[in-house]
Structure formats: structure tokens, C-alpha cells
């Protein structure tokens, strides 16, 4: 069965500092992996996705993520955090063809950015 674990419920970083949000997944086949961001009162916005190919994927807003099959991980990184990055971040694994037949989400990591 598919599952996603985000071990960090809440992370606080200083503006300008680097960021890494952890994500581990469990899936029986080749995973399709996603990171979504949810700002307060907003919907889910796709940051980036991994379907195949290069294991380091670039996304919007300066985010990147690296797929590591041996560690079943898909950690999200950003070299320098901005105050506007404060939000809830969700990692998800997709089932089905194209990886988006339905998505299994992690519990999310809330990011707080301090000046």
C-alpha cells in the first residue's frame, strides 16, 4: 500500500537560511512524487514533480527536490528561504498511470519563517 511520511510536523527557519523538508514514501512500483504547498486559506499549489529521468527536479519559487530510490526519499530543498515561503508543505505519491490517478499525501510540514 502507498504511504507517505513527513517526519517533521513544524519547522522554523530564519529568512535567508537554507531549508530541507523530509519526505519518505512507500510504494510498490516506480513512484510518481509531488510536493504541494498550501498557504493559509488557499488551495494546493504544485511546487514540483518527479515522474522519471533526472533525480534532481527543479520547481517553482526556487525549490528543488531529489529522488533517492535507495532511501525511498524525496526531500524538498531551498537554498535561501523568503518570508513568503511560510506555509504548509505536503509531499504526495501518485498511483496509477502518470502518477496522478489518485494521490496519497503526507501529514504535512508547517514552515515558519522568522526575520
Amino acid at each position, binding site marked *: 500500500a502507498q504511504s507517505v511520511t513527513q517526519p517533521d510536523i513544524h519547522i522554523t527557519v530564519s529568512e535567508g537560511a537554507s531549508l530541507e523538508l523530509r519526505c519518505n514514501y512507500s510504494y510498490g512500483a516506480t513512484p510518481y512524487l509531488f510536493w504541494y504547498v498550501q498557504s493559509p486559506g488557499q488551495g494546493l499549489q504544485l511546487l514540483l514533480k518527479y515522474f522519471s529521468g533526472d533525480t534532481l527536479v527543479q520547481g517553482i519559487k526556487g525549490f528543488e527536490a531529489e529522488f533517492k530510490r535507495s532511501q525511498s526519499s524525496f526531500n524538498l530543498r531551498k537554498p535561501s528561504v523568503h518570508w513568503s515561503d511560510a506555509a504548509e508543505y505536503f509531499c504526495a505519491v*501518485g498511483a496509477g498511470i502518470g502518477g496522478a490517478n489518485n*494521490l496519497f499525501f503526507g501529514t504535512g510540514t508547517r514552515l515558519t519563517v522568522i526575520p
Partner: protein
Amino acid sequence: EPEVTQTPSHQVTQMGQEVILRCVPISNHLYFYWYRQILGQKVEFLVSFYNNEISEKSEIFDDQFSVERPDGSNFTLKIRSTKLEDSAMYFCASRSRGTEAFFGQGTRLTVV
């Protein structure tokens, strides 16, 4: 940029009442989804819909839930007799073949 739109943004209903949540998917998309997020919990898959029928549903999606695509543009989620535990944010999503899902802003349902 095309987007998935959901109405209303917030719905308050009394326990036992029927509620319909509405979504307008992106126009050329073929696959449609409903997800929900109970406050403080993760986003959970409810149902997927393709070619005018349900393609997959979770155990959450019991007989109280139904989905419909009544015309070429709308995609609705109906809860027949709401319970307190149905209070959640409900997200609609759509995608075309081979792409990721695009999510709407969500409808916050409060059952009182």
C-alpha cells in the same frame, strides 16, 4: 492561466442536511477528483471520476457521498445527510492525460 474553481468557499450546514459542493474543472481535462482535509490532518483521497463514471473511491466515500458531472463543465460532490465528522476542507482537482492534478482553492464545510 486556467484554474479549477470551487464554490462556495465556505458552507455551513446543519447535521442531517444535504449539501452539494461545486467545482468547475479546467476545460480540457478528463479526470476529476475530490479530496478532503479534516482540520489539522492530511489531505485524503475520496473519489476519482473519468468518462462519466467513478473510476476509484476510498473507504471514506460511502453511500452518503455521490458525484456527478451534470453538464460539460461542472463536477459536484453531494453529501446526502451530513454528519459532524464531515466537517472538512474539500478539494476538487482535475487533470488531463499524463499530467499532474490541479487543485481548486477548496470549500470549507462546517456541519453544526
